[in-house]
């Protein structure tokens, strides 16, 4: 892969006019959540930027993050991947397979030693190495090998950033995040299940533009996208301030578009760009579609309590409660457990919400 030509020259040779380039830069600034006044600076930086080699490793994941990226629209994925980065290894997207694919990875590592960007999606199992392998190489071994000479690492998706769903209790594979293993490289977390596509490409574009990773928060997430919580940027926020809530998904409040806090919305504790960037070409986001935020860009979101429990109800280690609940269920004939499960089913049938207190009672019984 030839990475020698500056991007500006490569685009001009492809017949892209200066106007087209400026348009590209305006879209890139918007994508990176930078003010439009930064466009000339971005244009200047991109003009001389050289394409970085990217190695993408997929471990314990569902391919949702790659699906998200391949639907990225700004700029087009084709433009991003083929014009701006040199994607030298991605075992889902690349044509090569088996030994040829691994040879491509090794060649990219050798040719771009110390300069390539490593993108990881999926968590890494520390239990039996056989839980997840690529070409017979364990995820842990491959991560360490590729990370050693990477310039920086981007952990894409909640699984790579925090362990994600594989890490959910009882974590059968011993899943951990990239930062749990690699300690000596700059790492940026791009969490979300999946992350917003433009956030993934925005981080790549930032690296391309500035030659470094963007400014990060305490969880190593780019501040440009994770600097505000969903709640503060939500168009339903005025209803929260006025105390107007939907109590069920089909009541008058729901129909009027009132705040979904009582229905378990995790917007107040979730930092992401969904409320402004939105999904599907800027069409909508979960709250706009009438469902609360699940908090998928936060650590352990799966174990943060019920998706439909209000945040004000979460006052204990709900993961532990759930695990005990499962254990209780395994003891066949435990009358109290059966009683509580029946009560839970009845509550669901009657559209009643199951609260943390209900779960606490179940744990004690």
């Amino acid at each position: 892969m030839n990475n020698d030509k500056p991007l500006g020259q490569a685009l001009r040779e492809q017949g892209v006019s200066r106007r087209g380039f400026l348009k590209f830069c305006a879209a890139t600034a918007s994508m990176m959540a930078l003010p439009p006044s930064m466009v000339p600076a971005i244009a200047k930086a991109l003009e001389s930027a050289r394409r970085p080699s990217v190695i993408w490793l997929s471990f314990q994941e569902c391919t949702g993050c790659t699906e998200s990226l391949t639907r990225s629209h700004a700029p087009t994925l084709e433009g991003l991947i083929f014009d701006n980065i040199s994607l030298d290894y991605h075992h889902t997207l690349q044509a090569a397979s088996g030994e040829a694919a691994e040879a491509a990875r090794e060649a990219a590592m050798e040719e771009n030693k110390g300069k390539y960007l490593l993108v990881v999606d999926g968590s890494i199992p520390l239990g039996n190495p056989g839980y997840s392998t690529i070409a017979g190489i364990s995820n842990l071994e491959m991560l360490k090998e590729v990370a050693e000479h990477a310039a920086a690492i981007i952990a894409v998706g909640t699984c790579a950033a925090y362990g994600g769903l594989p890490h959910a209790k009882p974590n059968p594979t011993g899943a951990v995040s990239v930062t749990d293993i690699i300690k000596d490289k700059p790492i940026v977390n791009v969490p979300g299940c999946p992350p917003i596509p433009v956030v993934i490409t925005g981080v790549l574009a930032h690296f391309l533009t500035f030659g470094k990773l963007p400014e990060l928060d305490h969880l190593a997430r780019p501040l440009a996208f994770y600097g505000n919580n969903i709640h503060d940027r939500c168009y339903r926020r005025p209803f929260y301030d006025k105390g107007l809530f939907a109590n069920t998904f089909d009541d008058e409040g729901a129909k009027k578009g009132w705040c979904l806090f009582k229905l378990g919305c995790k917007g107040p504790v979730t930092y992401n760009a969904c409320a402004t960037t939105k999904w599907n070409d800027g069409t909508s986001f979960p709250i706009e579609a009438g469902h609360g935020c699940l908090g998928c860009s936060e650590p352990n979101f799966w174990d943060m309590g019920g998706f439909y429990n209000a945040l004000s109800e979460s006052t204990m280690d709900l993961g532990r409660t759930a695990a005990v609940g499962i254990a209780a269920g395994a003891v066949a004939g435990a009358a109290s457990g059966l009683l509580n499960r029946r009560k839970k089913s009845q509550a669901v049938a009657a559209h009643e919400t199951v609260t943390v207190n209900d779960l606490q009672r179940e744990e004690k019984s």
Partner: protein
Amino acid sequence: MNPIDSSLKVEIGGYHSGNVPPLLHEIRHALRNLLDNGETTTIDLRGLPMAPGEQQQLLEILGKGEVSAHLDALGRSEIIESSYAGVWLIIHYNSNNEVMGKFIEITRMPAILEAQTADMEESLATLQMRLEEI
């Protein structure tokens, strides 16, 4: 669909982020600044939370003015002057006709409409070659 199609009415109902009036004030301030100091302003519409229908409401209020232009570079772009002189709506699409960016520019003329030096230099060389062939 025309981005400023006033025939399309959207029922906003109880959904309001309340961001349309402040945005209009921001545009008013920017227009004042353009007149007084010659400074241009660009507002990225993707940076603001908008309830369903509110962006349409904003565009309806801005209306359509005397000038509209289309650009064909890395996909289509629409550059439309609103009914308020100096306030422009710019929408960039990619080659799949998906929106890449949506901006309001407060300027005498959006910079992207001006012929660019690099393009003019290349055009000059091309024209020169063409003349030598004749």
